């Protein structure tokens, strides 16, 4: 199975929970601190792939899911994605405003909506 399909399988499961639900799921997937090795020593399930390839595969998976959801929503006459945030509707606004690290963007979400 391709890397993109692996991510797509996972994201299909996670996406209906919305941005906060995804974050909770990913946070809960963390091993406890005491058992976590440093990143360099961490066995990766995708260690043959470069980071850029992993990132590209995630984005391809998101795009494919987006299209699938949009097609389904169109057929059913409803909005796609609901509160899943990558289109700026409910959690992870886009584009990324205010990436100055001495400030943060939570107070500026009003721009995105």
């Amino acid at each position: 199975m391709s890397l993109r399909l692996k991510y797509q399988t996972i994201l299909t499961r996670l996406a209906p929970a919305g941005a906060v639900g995804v974050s909770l799921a990913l946070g809960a997937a963390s091993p406890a601190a005491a058992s976590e090795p440093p990143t360099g020593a961490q066995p990766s399930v995708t260690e043959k792939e470069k980071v850029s390839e992993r990132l590209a595969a995630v984005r391809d998976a998101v795009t494919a899911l987006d299209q699938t959801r949009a097609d389904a929503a169109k057929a059913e006459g409803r909005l796609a994605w609901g509160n899943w945030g990558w289109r700026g509707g409910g959690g992870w606004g886009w584009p990324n405003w205010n990436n100055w690290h001495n400030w943060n963007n939570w107070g500026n979400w009003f721009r995105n909506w």
Partner: protein
Amino acid sequence: MTSDSVAQTMPQIQLLVVQPTPFCNIDCRYCYLPDRSNKSVVAEETLRNLFSQVFASGWAQEGLSVVWHAGEPMVLPIAFYRRAFALIDGLKPTGLAVRHSFQTNGTLIDDAWCDFVAEAAINIGVSIDGPQRLHDRNRVTRTGRGTFGKAVAGVRHLRQHGVPFHVISVLTPESLAAPREMFDFYLAEGIEHVCFNVEESEGDHRSASFAEAGIEDAYYRFLSEFWRLSAAHPGRIQFIREIDDAQRNVIRPRDATFFNQLATPFAITSMDWTGNIATFSPELLGLKSPLYDDFVLGNINRDRLVQLAERPLLKRMRDDIDAGIALCRESCEYFSVCGGGEPVNKLFENGSFATAETTYCRMTKMRATDLVLDRLERIPGFVEGREAALPSGSASPVL
């Protein structure tokens, strides 16, 4: 984006950083601001010149965030801000949203400030570095006394008045080793929105953290454990900037590109109390550089804002920043999550804007990205590419 295409596009100011005074009532050990004992105050005429030109320029058509910072904003009286905000309201075009924000050390927050913050709908960020033993290591008065008691009293005032706020905590090697202690502190103080900065090298300050062996892995482990703790206590910590940003930058559609505000002319525009104007990383204003004329493009009391876009200094800085971004694009696996990094860190870590990787970006961009990718790949079912039960505690959508 090339320099030519930037030159042909009207700048869009998204964030305006205004220094009401360079003075700060405390003296943090890692502070990079060189002029923090100077008690000068920006003149009303300087504010009038700034905002009238910003609004007349057409450079702020999509709304404007104004951050009062780079000195402690609350050392000035509330009356100063009442006058300033009224002035700005009188100048701004109808329908343009202007949102004021303070980044404060919190030590001066009292009931009167809380009432004013609520009344003026000011976004408040409080700098507090965690529990007392960690906070007081660096956030001290000029006589070396810790400021924790006053800072946490300020946070409690905000909570008692129901004023929303976020906290920015600077992480040091000591706090990186104590994610549980940091987490427990935020929970105990009812802090729900947290941002983590790292102690970085800027200006004359040389980061002790960056010199530590293993600091990048320590950062990864800190974020990982903090995220795990947050997920185990749903609804308590509502926002972790570094985690939210990393997720948004990783899990996004293919066609969404990163906009690097810190490398885009005037997207962030900074003005010091004298009216000097700078752009790119706000920290640049106030730092010294013979090569870049101390990063000052002009002065709002003497120059026209729209003409600053044509200054040779801006082109020189932009060319070097663009060269650095090009290096990042060619050489960095993580380019798509940060768009070329932060100019100020390149300059003060590597000696030039026209460089690529920094310790700052290895920590805050690369390790945070690794963390999100690693977590995605640890969701049950990933390896097999099959559906499987989610980890416990993650089933309920919260939004």
